[in-house]
């Protein structure tokens, strides 16, 4: 009995979807546009986060030690610093390594070699490179290093010269995060509103039928179920359509992203997460479709 009704209402939902061709097309389009906007917003947020993370990784503070400080002492200090909660990583750069990097950086020309011969020894200082969890905490970290037990071993901290760059980057990151969140929420809200109204119009066009169905003895649930199934169909079709659109979008934007994100390019991200994206779109579409149908039909089912 129950099963019979589920099968019947499901069939009816499918038949409604097919017979109301234009209305279904319009509703699916609206739903697809909403899902597309939500997906693009999510993708933008995702890439923005990657960019922010790589930017944050580039910010660091180097602490240079006096030339007389032994390697054991520096390693001891490094290990001490690594225990700070605010510090993400501490890397030791010996003066030999610093020299290698300098030579690498200069492209292996003779100038530096000549200069070194002239001096007779490696003039660079050993250092540790500190990365903080949060760029806003560099000031605090540098201050506490300045007051620490090893302050006399330190030659220079390059914080002051980097301070303005760090501050600017920090502000930019904060602003990007905030505006991304606000834009994302606005887009999602507008999309949900569009879908809800599209489905409300569909229900409005059926309103007289609900009355008839009630009067010939159909229960509210029996009237409602076909529309819920129709909502599921809207969601599935819209999800599939958006999947194709997203492929097209990734395909065209992909060359721009080559090498800029860890996964390679946007198309690789698309195929790497194909089933996650598809599942997400189906879930989102079905939820939007069903919940909107459910709410929209409610006002016509009184009595």
């Amino acid at each position, binding site marked *: *009995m129950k099963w*019979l009704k589920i099968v019947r209402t499901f069939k009816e939902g499918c038949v409604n979807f097919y017979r109301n061709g234009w209305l279904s097309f319009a509703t699916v389009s609206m739903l697809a546009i909403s899902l597309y906007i939500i997906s693009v917003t999510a993708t933008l947020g995702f890439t923005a986060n990657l960019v922010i993370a790589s930017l944050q990784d580039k910010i660091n503070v180097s602490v240079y030690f006096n030339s007389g400080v032994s390697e054991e002492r520096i390693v001891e200090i490094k290990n001490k610093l690594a225990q700070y909660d605010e510090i993400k990583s501490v890397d030791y750069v010996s003066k030999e390594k610093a020299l290698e990097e300098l030579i690498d950086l200069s492209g292996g020309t003779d100038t530096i070699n000549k200069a070194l011969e002239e001096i007779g020894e490696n003039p660079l200082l050993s250092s540790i490179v500190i990365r903080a969890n949060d760029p806003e905490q560099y000031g605090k970290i540098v201050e506490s290093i300045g007051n620490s037990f090893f302050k006399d071993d330190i030659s220079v901290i390059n914080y002051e010269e980097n301070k303005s760059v760090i501050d600017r980057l920090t502000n930019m990151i904060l602003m990007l995060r905030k505006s991304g969140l606000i834009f994302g929420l606005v887009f999602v809200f507008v999309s949900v509103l569009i879908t809800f109204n599209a489905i409300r119009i569909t229900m409005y066009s059926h309103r007289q039928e609900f009355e008839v169905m009630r*009067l010939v*003895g*159909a*229960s509210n649930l029996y009237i409602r179920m076909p529309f819920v199934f129709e909502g599921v169909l809207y969601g599935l079709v819209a999800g599939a359509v958006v999947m194709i659109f997203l492929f097209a979008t990734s395909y065209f934007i992909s060359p721009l992203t080559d090498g800029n994100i860890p996964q390679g390019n946007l198309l690789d991200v698309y195929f790497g997460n194909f089933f996650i994206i598809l599942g997400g779109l189906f879930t989102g579409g079905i939820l939007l479709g069903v919940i909107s149908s459910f709410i929209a039909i409610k006002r016509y089912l009184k*009595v």
Partner: protein
Amino acid sequence: MIKFENVSKIYQGNFIALENIDLLVGNGEFVSVVGQSGAGKSTLLKMISAEEQPTEGRVYFNDRPLDTIKKKHLPYFRRNIGTVFQDFKLLPQKTVFENVAYALEAAGETDEQIAEKVPEILDIVGMSDKMEKYPHQLSGGEKQKISLARALVHNPLVILADEPSGNLDPISTWEIIQLLLKINSLGTTVVLATHNKDTVDKIAKRVITMEAGRITRDEVKGKYVI
């Protein structure tokens, strides 16, 4: 079978649709309710199908007070009643067959029962050759016959017909009335609301006359007199 006990219905803004109605309709009766538009005929019928609840008094169906029926049980109650409307109220997206079958489907009857009953009832109203048509492909008279078939298909105890001939030509009107009389002769109670004088006079059965929400006449073999 249907009893009105001092029923009044007052809509918002103090509009009185029904006033102190006492009425008894027996099993198997054919009752015509006549009166001008706005006299309260439709409201009276809506009280019987529990679409409207009285402001005062009580309506009984087979000794059961309708106001005690829970909302979720209303669909089951309504399967005792077949309703026919002036504007047919067929489902536009469904074929003739599906329109009639809908009431049975909603009541949970099996596909076999439906496949048997629907052609049978369409045969009774003379529409078995239009089964696969959609409502917009039918004339007004044909639509009303389908509507009547739908009302009859689950063997209701009562048929409520609210101006069933309001949109029909005289010949179609008479066909519908003939069908109602035929249904009545098979034992179903019929309550017909109309303002068609000729029809009422030809039927020559009980006539209830309404004016401004009150019953002014109730004659066993009545005529349309206003």
